[in-house]
């Protein structure tokens, strides 16, 4: 049986010439690029970190995986929520153009699709991949199903 489309809001983002979509509920904000702080690490997808609203947010270039090459320029960072088994954290995704909020019906992914594809939607004649950020971005273990978790950024505070 073909799954029924789900109507919801999505943010369209641009990576070079291609567009992708992310569930709007996973997006916190769109911000101008700021200074990226880099330090040694072994996770290739992570470029560094930015400071946003007092939080230290990892910058993750997903273009290498989605379009086959890293971005040489970026216009904005899309601040998104990434769910882990222990909670939710912000991540910053570099994008190369304006983002757009749309309402559309998503056809859920099937078994033949790659793990980072949550589904597909049709917009202005284009068929666009809806991204599953939990599968697309690095993390310690498989993420749980989508929930409305609000516990952001654990901190070892001295307060």
């Amino acid at each position: 049986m073909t799954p029924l489309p789900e109507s919801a809001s999505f943010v369209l983002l641009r990576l070079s010439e291609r567009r992708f979509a992310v569930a709007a509920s996973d997006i916190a904000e769109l911000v101008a690029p700021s200074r990226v702080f880099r330090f040694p690490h072994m996770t290739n997808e992570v470029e560094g970190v930015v400071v946003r609203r007092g939080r230290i947010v990892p910058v993750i270039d997903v273009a290498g995986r989605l379009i086959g090459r890293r971005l040489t320029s970026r216009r904005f960072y899309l601040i998104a929520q990434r769910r882990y088994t222990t909670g939710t954290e912000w991540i910053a995704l570099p994008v190369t153009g304006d983002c757009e909020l749309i309402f559309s019906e998503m056809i859920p992914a099937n078994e033949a699709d790659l793990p980072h594809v949550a589904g597909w939607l049709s917009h202005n004649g284009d068929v666009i991949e809806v991204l599953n950020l939990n599968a697309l971005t690095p993390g310690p273990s498989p993420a749980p199903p989508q929930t409305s978790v609000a516990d952001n950024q654990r901190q070892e505070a001295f307060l």
Partner: protein
Amino acid sequence: MRLPAPAKAQPVRSEQIILFRISGQLFAVSSASVQEVRSVDTLAGSAHEIPQSEIRKVRHTVQRGEHNLYVVNGALHFNLPPSHAALVFVLRRTRTALLVDGIEKMTTMTRLQALPQAFCNEERNWYRGITAIDQIVVPVVKPEGFLTPDELFALDSVVDPALTPTGEEAHEAQATDRAAQDSATSDVSSAFSVGTTLDSASSIQ
């Protein structure tokens, strides 16, 4: 009408840290974790070369009491370009002496953010977390993360094979090392308790 009593402000806990550089990269370490700071020159006389070590970042050992301290090249540990180390940090409650290029300054951090989970590889053993000092983001190193129990075991077997346990004894020894590391990890000292060793520039020999 009586106004509610104002909430008492909680005293801000802070931790003394040393900002230091390796190959141009800035790091922080808790002052309480550093037992001693020495210049490389003063260490040279007492260091012994390790002839055949599979652990590239360790080339020398220093005898301290009953134990060997292993001198870790910070640049190799963090996969940074080679640099000229001028100082050595003897790290408390570890068997590590860390080669660093120099000390930037000593300061205080009031907040340590856990390393974001997007960092999911070896670096999770390297850092306690990240802090921001003067709007600069600095990783705070984990003293016990420079040498794993397996690496210590491999080094011990090269440096002093007679003292290296074998068979079940080896497993017990490694388990003890891991337990000691876990214990050190959970022991986050916020006090600047290094004593006199780091109190003045003159102690940096």
